[in-house]
């Protein structure tokens, strides 16, 4: 196997509290009643990538994730779970497991990716261009992460959020500029040398780095080794490689060149020939090759390396679960617009009601809803666009709209839940009204309480 896959499953993300805890790390968060990590793992499996290293932050979280994986996938996949200390960053995580990496190319996926993009195509792009890094880009999701939880209808009117500024060449194959994080809000600074070499750069604000990268192993490890201050793949390593692509520093030492730069082989010719090639402009070599040629022959050939992109088609689903807003959106999408991701088969009413679930009289479950195994609902309930987990007990006259209810939740009569997330083992006493709330695991919402936009969790 010449692609090794590293899944960065994270640990307990601060952004997702109170939904996650040490017992329930990010990776195991239920999305449409499946563990979050299963979406990535099964996507990889679908692309015939079965050799995985799952990196989890924190020892406890790692144990939990490991236990789940060995139960779920032991027969099908070869998965190793590695624990790294918390807060080492993505670059640190790769450093920590560097000695386990041996394949020529490494595919690094964030464990919170929910997508149906053909990863094989990303890998193929990487190989075809012999790139040092290939990044998956997708359209920016419509709703921004900073906005508070809002109802589904409103989202359509919002402008796409702005996550990254990405510069592409006219053929949309190469990554020429990337600004992420705080840089997005600043003025744009483009290296003139790259613009000169390429001629035209298209700057896109509507694309997002999906945090799925194919790296050349030797390059990745060398960069991580030399630049020990680099902390994040997305914010440090990728921008560094993009910036230095016309004056590569990564391939100079150590690794043999023949393996690395297939395209540049046989290029080191005499001065004269190179000039004639520049001026003849006969064939249209990529700008990398052209740039590599355009130097004095007495010096060493200019080093270039390629940073490629694979842009997911607009029909593809590709989102990261990295905020509570995203958690709501993804749950909604997985049982709604992107229902093929869930792996369930939908009923004629466009919803999924487990055969063991029990519904009371005059209770309606609308389309794009899910009702888990063994859950019971009383009379005259209404569920719209929501996910309800396993073994929940729901009383009569309860309304659940645009919400996620996890497992073993008890909901009293006349409760109303809208746009909220209710974690496992929560008890909602009767007539509780929740709107845009997150209720942490095991919390008890007292009878008649009315909350709006609050976070309720055990201290």
């Amino acid at each position, binding site marked *: 196997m010449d692609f090794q896959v590293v899944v960065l499953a994270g640990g307990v993300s601060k952004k997702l509290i109170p939904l996650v805890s040490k017992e329930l790390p990010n990776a195991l968060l239920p999305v449409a009643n499946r563990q979050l990590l299963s979406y990535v793992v099964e996507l990889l499996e679908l692309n015939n990538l079965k050799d995985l290293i799952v990196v989890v932050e924190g020892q406890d979280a790692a144990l939990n994730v490991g236990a789940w994986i060995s139960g779920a996938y032991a027969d099908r996949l070869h998965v190793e779970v590695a624990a790294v200390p918390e807060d080492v960053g993505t670059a640190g995580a790769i450093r920590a497991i560097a000695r386990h990496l041996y394949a020529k190319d490494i595919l690094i996926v964030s464990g919170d990716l929910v997508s149906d993009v053909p990863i094989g195509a990303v890998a193929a792009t990487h190989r075809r261009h012999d790139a040092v890094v290939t990044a998956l880009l997708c359209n920016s999701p419509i709703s921004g992460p900073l906005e508070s939880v809002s109802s589904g209808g409103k989202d359509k009117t919002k402008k796409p959020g702005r996550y990254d500024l990405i510069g592409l060449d006219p053929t949309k194959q190469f990554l020429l500029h990337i600004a992420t994080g705080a840089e997005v809000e600043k003025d744009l600074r483009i*290296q003139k040398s790259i613009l*000169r070499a390429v*001629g035209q750069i298209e700057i896109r604000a*509507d694309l997002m780095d999906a945090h799925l990268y194919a790296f050349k192993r030797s390059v990745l490890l060398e960069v991580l080794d030399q630049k020990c201050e680099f902390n994040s793949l997305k914010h440090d390593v990728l921008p560094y490689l993009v910036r230095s692509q016309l004056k590569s520093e990564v391939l100079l030492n150590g690794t043999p060149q023949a393996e690395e730069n297939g395209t540049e082989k046989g290029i080191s010719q005499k001065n004269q020939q190179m000039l004639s090639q520049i001026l003849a402009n006969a064939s249209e070599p990529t700008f990398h090759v052209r740039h590599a040629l355009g130097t004095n022959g007495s010096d060493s050939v200019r080093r270039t390396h390629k940073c490629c992109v694979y842009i997911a088609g607009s029909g593809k689903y590709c989102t990261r679960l990295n905020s509570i807003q995203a958690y709501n959106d993804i749950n909604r999408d997985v049982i709604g617009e992107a229902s093929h991701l869930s792996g369930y088969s939908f009923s004629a009413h466009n919803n999924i009601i487990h055969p063991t679930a029990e519904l009371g009289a005059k209770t309606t479950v609308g389309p794009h809803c899910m009702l888990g195994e063994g859950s019971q609902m009383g009379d005259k309930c209404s569920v719209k666009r929501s996910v309800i987990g396993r073994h929940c007990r729901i009383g009569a006259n309860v309304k659940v709209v645009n919400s996620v209810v996890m497992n073993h939740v008890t909901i009293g009569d006349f409760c109303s839940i809208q746009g909220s997330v209710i974690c496992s083992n929560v008890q909602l006493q009767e007539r509780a009204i929740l709107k845009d709330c997150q209720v942490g695991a095991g919390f008890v919402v007292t009878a008649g309480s009315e909350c709006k936009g609050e976070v309720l969790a055990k201290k």
Partner: protein
Amino acid sequence: MGAPKKSAARVSEDHDELVRVPLQAILLADSFTTKFRPITLERPKVLLPLVNVPMINYTLTWLESAGVEEVFVFCCAHAKQVINYLEKSEWFSQPNFTVTTIESQNSVSAGDALRVIYERNVIQGDFVLISGDTVSNMSLTQALLEHKERKKRDSNAVMTMVIKRSKTNPAIRQSRLGTDEIFMAIDPNTKQLLSYEDKADYSKGTLHLENSLLADNPSLSLHHDKQDCYIDICSPEVLTLFTDNFDYQHLRRHFVKGLLVDDIMGYKIFVHEIRSDYAARVDNFRSYATVSKDIIHRWTYPLVPDVMNFGNTATKLERQGIYRGSEISQSQSAVVGPFSVIGSGTKVGQNTNILNSIVGGDCKIGSNVHIEGCYIWDNVTIEDGCELRHSIVCDGVIMKSGSVLEPGAVLSFKVIVGQAFVVPSYSQVSLLQQPIEEDSDEELEYADSTSVITSTVDKSEGEFASESLDAHFNPASELGFGGVGYVWPKCEGEEEWRHSVAPITEDKILEAVKAIEHELELIHDGNTLPPSGELIPNSNDSDDDDNDDSRDDFDKEVEATFLRAVHENIQDVHLTLEINSLKLSYNKITADCAGALFYAMMKYAVDMPHSSADSLIQNVNVILTKWKKVLKSYLNDMDEQIEVILKFEEMCLESAKEFAPLFTKILHYLYNEDIVEEDAILSWEDEKKDADESDKVFVNQAQKLIQWLKEAPEEDDDEEE
């Protein structure tokens, strides 16, 4: 009610269409630059022959074919010549095509020209703005339609610029036409121009775009591979804008950038890209050569020599791209290579080779002459055995036998090259001397000096050559025996290869490529340092730079103010006032004032004549005594006094090393004069305690004084007790 109103509006629109004004054009018959000197000292650029036809004919022919009905030719430099030429030509008598000249003697830029035209009040609708040195065969219909559509939707869309894709290869992108590189940012959907950067603000290795540009559009494309054709379709508002902003001079540098930067008025500029059509401007000698070749290669069809005839006798195209006029006498043994032009009435002698060259009418070329890549105009005499490579030879030049032109040479009108003389590469030769008044601002200079020279040339056109011959030249002149003409000293040596007609040598290409690479390295040095690898620290750097700059400016201002005070005997009080106002405008603290003022005084002391160290001290004494009051008004605090000492130390180290040996003496003097107090000196020493040895030079030098100061206060204390 709504419906009839609508239809009424439509009727009025149609009405507008019916009385629509004829399509007008403004042709600037003056480029307001000096790139074609020395030739343009004697003849305006638009009348220079491009493949044996004066340039302005290409522009006018295109305007006529593109459907323009009324052209205003703006003449400035050599206006008389342009007008005379147009009067003699057929342009004034064309049906459906009126040519009107507008003459102005005191315009120095395109901006001035447009202001003059605005005053004439002749432009009624959209117009084409073009300079008289543009060769194009593009169809205007599409661009005009787009412009009108946009204008209807958004009245702020005032201009459409025509651009063209240049070569894909970065190595020849600029060198082809010898133009400066342009960075453009364009909205790919609306084709709105968002940013335009040319060499004038070419500074750092990064292109800086404001974040707000991306606020409305999800994408924008940055271009380095586009070439500006200098054909603009403008709305009448453009003229108003030039009138309102009287500092707009250059069309691109001021006007376009001004509009792009100004977000209050919200005027927008759009681009129209032509793909298969031809458009280029003859901007310098290199583009002169390139465009000439393009014409011979028929890229500009129908603007090619055998189709365009302006009173000349017919030119015929033979195979291999050889164009021949009539009545040519060519020796059997002479060879004319492919892609050459020979004008009517020219005689070519035996064993002469003419390769890739354009030869004008009525030339006499002797035998055994080698001409390669040259542009030879009319009535040129080339005697036997000459060798000409990649040069421009103007009307009436005589090359005596055996003389040689090396690549890049330019011979202006009626120059005579002496026997067997070798004109070196890139030399410019003219009968006129190089104008002396070299203003740094090239645009302003051009019209000024030429308007003076024009008059003399116009007056004495005929006799001029003979007159100057008698007056200034002896037989063994700068151009060899029998030569006539001045070889102009080279001014901008670095760039001449870029603009000249000579092919660019390989080492120059490599040099240019290396320069770019060097720049690349610089960027990297800057960027690899920050730990996170982000570009943010860069921006901090630039901020720091700004601060430094403003500080330098402040110091300079204070120094200038002080010197003025010294020379004009300004009172102390007034000087203090002026420095205070500087302090406020530069947002400085008192310590900065003290430092800057002290620096100015000491600098003045050094600059005053002095023979020895003692007289220098004497100078210092004089100045300090005189201006002590002003200085002391900034020295209320100990920090400010320390600043003065530090400044002095810095001066001794860097700008005025003469003070170095006198440091202690002057410091003592400052102490005696109560300019610095002992606490300041002591805390200065204290501050330096942990510094490097190299920084402590002066502390050590002043150790005696410090020792003495330290002992003295104890005594004081004792006395008090």
